[in-house]
């Protein structure tokens, strides 16, 4: 089976079978990462561009290593060094990338829908590495991979996503993905940071942390953008930590074998207590490793081998 699509723009349009294929493909990729010599020829001769309009060392490095482990030529373009600061439009940047013979463009952008626009303008595969408050599909895939690895399944699990739901692309992609795979998704956070009518996406909103954590199998803590406080979305960081900070004590109501996740980087002592971040329940480091494996799987499925959109030489 192959991923019969040119781009990966979000999990909204993916089927449960496609998600399973990506997660299954990530398993042998993880084995490659654990080898002494982490290099396979799968993407030799392929060009991958990391086009980042937002700073993100973690995601960019993860994609870059994924490409390099599979022998692709990967380059990074970030806004501070590119012609974007000279006023070049996304469309023109896309054209330039196109004529350079790029096979895959990985786009991180502060505006929702930017990867969709790019995908319409280039014949290369576009992977969304986070667009505004819309989707972050590779993060959700690595989250789901990690959950599946720890729990053996995604079906029937209770997953609580805690934090700034309104602005979170990680939350949206996880809701799309997890509900498709049969998990029960709860979203927990202050009312001012809750996305309108989110229950229609299949996630139940909670405004009380303890209620949201009750019997949860997975707790996914989101990073709090501290500048939200300046915009008046909540009174103080201190109050946020007191009411919505995930602590050891609060986790007692969750399932005894709960796992705690965080997309990083963490504000320790704000959204997550330091002892939780470093606890045995936390799988935050595994998430990072799995991120590389999942991204390798995606590069492979979209441009590496057997993709029907890929011309045979």
């Amino acid at each position, binding site marked *: 089976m192959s991923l019969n699509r040119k781009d990966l723009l979000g999990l*909204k349009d993916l089927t449960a079978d496609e998600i399973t294929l990506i997660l299954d493909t990530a398993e042998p990729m993880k084995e490659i990462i654990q080898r002494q010599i982490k290099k396979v020829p799968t993407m030799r001769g392929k060009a991958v561009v990391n086009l980042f309009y937002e700073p993100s060392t973690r995601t960019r490095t993860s994609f870059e290593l994924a490409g390099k482990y599979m022998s692709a030529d990967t380059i990074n373009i970030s806004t501070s060094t590119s012609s974007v600061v000279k006023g070049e*439009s*996304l*469309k023109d940047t896309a054209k330039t990338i196109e004529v350079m013979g790029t096979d895959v463009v990985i786009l991180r*952008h*502060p*505006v*929702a*829908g*930017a990867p*969709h*626009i790019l995908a319409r303008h280039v014949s290369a595969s576009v992977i969304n590495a986070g*667009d*505004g*408050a*819309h*989707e972050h599909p590779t993060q959700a895939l690595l989250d789901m991979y990690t959950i599946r690895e720890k729990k053996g399944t995604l079906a029937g699990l209770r997953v609580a996503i805690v934090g700034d739901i309104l602005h979170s*692309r990680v939350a*949206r992609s996880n809701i799309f993905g997890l509900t498709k795979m049969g998990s029960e998704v709860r979203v927990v956070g202050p009312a001012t940071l809750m*996305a*309108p*009518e*989110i229950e*229609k*996406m299949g996630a139940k909103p909670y405004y009380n942390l303890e209620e949201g954590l009750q019997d949860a199998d997975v707790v996914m803590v989101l990073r709090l953008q501290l500048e939200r406080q300046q915009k008046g979305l909540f009174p103080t960081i201190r109050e946020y930590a007191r009411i919505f900070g995930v602590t050891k004590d609060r986790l007692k109501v969750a399932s005894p074998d709960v796992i705690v996740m965080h997309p990083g980087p963490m504000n320790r002592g704000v959204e997550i207590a330091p002892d939780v971040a470093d606890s045995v329940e936390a799988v935050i480091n595994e998430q990072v490793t799995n991120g590389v494996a999942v991204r390798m799987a995606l590069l492979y499925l979209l441009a590496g081998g057997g993709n029907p959109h890929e011309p045979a030489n």
Partner: protein
Amino acid sequence: MNLLIRGGRVVDPANNMDQVADIYITNGKIASVGAQIDVSRHDCEVIDAQGKWVFPGFIDMHVHLREPGYEAKETIATGTRAAARGGFTSVACMPNTNPVIDNRALVEFVKAKALAEGVVHVFPIGAITKGSRGEELAEIGDMYQAGAIAISDDGQPVANAQLMRLAMQYAMMFDIPIISHCEDKQLVADGVMNEGYCSTLFGLRGITRAAEEIMVARDILLAEVTGAKLHIAHVSTRGSVELVRMAKKKGLRVTAEATPHHFTLTEEAVGNYDTSTKVNPPLRSAEDVQAVKEGLKDGTIDIIATDHAPHTVEEKDVEYNYAPFGMIGLETAWGLIYEELVEKGILDLKEAVAKLTVRPAAIFGLQGKGSLTVGYDGDITIIDPALEETVNPDNFASKARNSAFIGRRLKALPVYTIVQGKIVMNNRTL
């Protein structure tokens, strides 16, 4: 030159007329309307209108011609040609140009430019406040005397309620309407589309309906205090429709308009991130669209206006958040009105025509416009009910391309636009 339009189905809501008739125009004015007009002895051009619909020329009271200042988006020359192609014989242009039309000289500039380069009538609207900055009243009286038919800070709501009240009181001396762009900018914050499930789904910042409704409510209350003529621009929510309905029940001099895109599209159209769908007020939910249609049906919404808002391709061909608000509408308006309102039984043909002719003429006091009454201007729109066309940007007379209706098939399109007896569009050709 004299003109005879022979044998069309003549629909003139002002005179409660819907029958096959001839229309004779001489010296730019309607000379007679009736069966079998004999003009054999006159030097006369004849349009055979059999099988066609003949209406008073359409009037669009909410158009952005962008001149002076933004000629790359549109000019009076191109904007009026777009109007003619859409069957409009008169347009009113908003003052949010650069500089803002806030004094006599600029009103006169628009009029002179329209006379020299325009192909349809242009009625300038003056700003409420200097520079539309919402700080001090513009020279409303002087602009009125120079030909401004209404005042508006369209695009920039007058945030200061006291200033809005004074503007209403002042405008009453000239009995001209004050057109309110109802929007609480602070509630809008950084929103780019309607707030709700779709904004959550698409990850775009939402604009609450309350941002519009709060200002509609405020301005209705101020209209009650002052007794002024208040016209609410581009009504888009169920709550706004209800507020206008209440105001009318109270007998206030409040009128309202809706745009074709607000009664045709829902917020779901934003899902492809086509920036043509980024409009202000935003495309709303199916429930709001339904309410706007009900408002049009029961007369709460008096007129249809396009809010034709041209932008350059470069400005719109960017990421959603970065694009300016606005969609063009002159060239697609009638096709959408016909399909969405007439064919779906919301309005009959006469009611639909009234919202583009006699009603706007009455609200804005346009003399000799909006009807086929003898002695009125020979402004006429002829529709071919059998004509279907796919909306193709290559055919736009507007400079702009920011239409969400490109590729849509429209029917019953205007084939002739006649302005004071002069054929401006003939068989879809300008």
